[in-house]
């Protein structure tokens, strides 16, 4: 019984903390960031490649190129599977589609 109470409290506490922490940025799906200049676009591509190698490259090579909407679905799936961060996901998606 005590274990159940502890577990229920832990889960509720975790949800509360995460909901509170998430007040500011809301994630409505993997939208590709928009670059303001070509220099910024290059920098975002490089950063995206770096994040890809650090997160995704630990398990597998880069897949073939897919249309952006399909790639967004794949990246959303992998975000959940590999628990990568929101920022990493967006930059990886930029690298994979731009």
């Amino acid at each position, binding site marked *: 019984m005590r*274990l159940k109470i502890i*577990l229920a409290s*832990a*889960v509720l506490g*975790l*949800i509360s903390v*995460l*909901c509170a*922490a*998430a007040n500011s*940025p*809301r*994630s409505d*799906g993997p939208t*590709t960031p928009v670059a303001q200049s070509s220099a910024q676009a290059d920098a975002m591509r490089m950063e995206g490649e770096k*994040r890809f*190698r*650090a*997160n995704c*490259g*630990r*398990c*597998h*090579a*880069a*897949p*073939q190129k*897919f*249309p*952006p*909407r*399909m790639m*967004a679905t*794949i990246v*959303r*799936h992998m*975000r*959940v*599977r*590999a*628990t*990568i*961060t*929101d*920022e*990493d996901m967006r930059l990886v998606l930029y690298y994979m*589609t731009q």
Partner: protein
Amino acid sequence: MESRAEFQGAFQRPPGGGPFGGPVSKNLDYLQMDYIANPYLTVTVGRFLTPFGIFNERLYPIWIRSLQQDPLILPLSAESSDGMMLRGGFPVNAKANLNYAVYGSAVSTGHSNLGSDRNVGGRMGVFLPGPRVEVGASWQKLLQNGRTNAFGFYSTWQSQRVPLNMHSEYARSNQGSGYWVDGAYRLSQAPFWQRSMRRLEVAGRAEQFFSGQISSDAARAFGLPGANTREGEFGLNYYLHDGLKAVTSYGRQFSSDGNANLWSVGIAYRFALPLGGVGQQ
């Protein structure tokens, strides 16, 4: 929503001769619905891969794993669970990301391909993007039968200087304990036959299993070795392209139940078929 199902066939010629035949097993690994509530939290309901250690969730697919044999300790925790899971990953600071998963599972005995135990558990890991190191720990509490605990630790490392990936895992429960360490090295830096060598990967794994508090027959029923076991495995993989690879491996298993050679030869092919519109974003 996402899903994965497996069909596995084992065909052999009967001892007295005749046509090849054998059973085909079917299994639903996961059928889950994910709701990305915010950047820190994803809520998953349905049948999902149990987040215990790293092999089951991340390294299991045949197009990802570098050696085709499962680690000996894989059955120490439930491979799939039916219930609800909260998970996510977020940066703690510029140098570290935290990832977590907590879940509760209901018992399911109605269909052998959809079975699950009543349990709760979780996993937490810290990933350092700089050195590309991740370490983490898992825990699972069975809420039926012996109400036993299982726990484990894992680590991964990807070298930035050479194309080398290392993974390791340790797990312990009343059914036994053990560890595995594996590594995969792409020969892309070899100074000769560059065109072919960059597609070649050398992989190896060392692992050990120690029997637990259950009988040998019960251990085998769980898919575990029936006695203390050591195993070494060596493999060569050739990537024809990113979605197609030829795999070979040889392993030697040492056990008081008898030693054995483990050979694997195969082709792993990965493809994606769009089931809906794939227009421009």
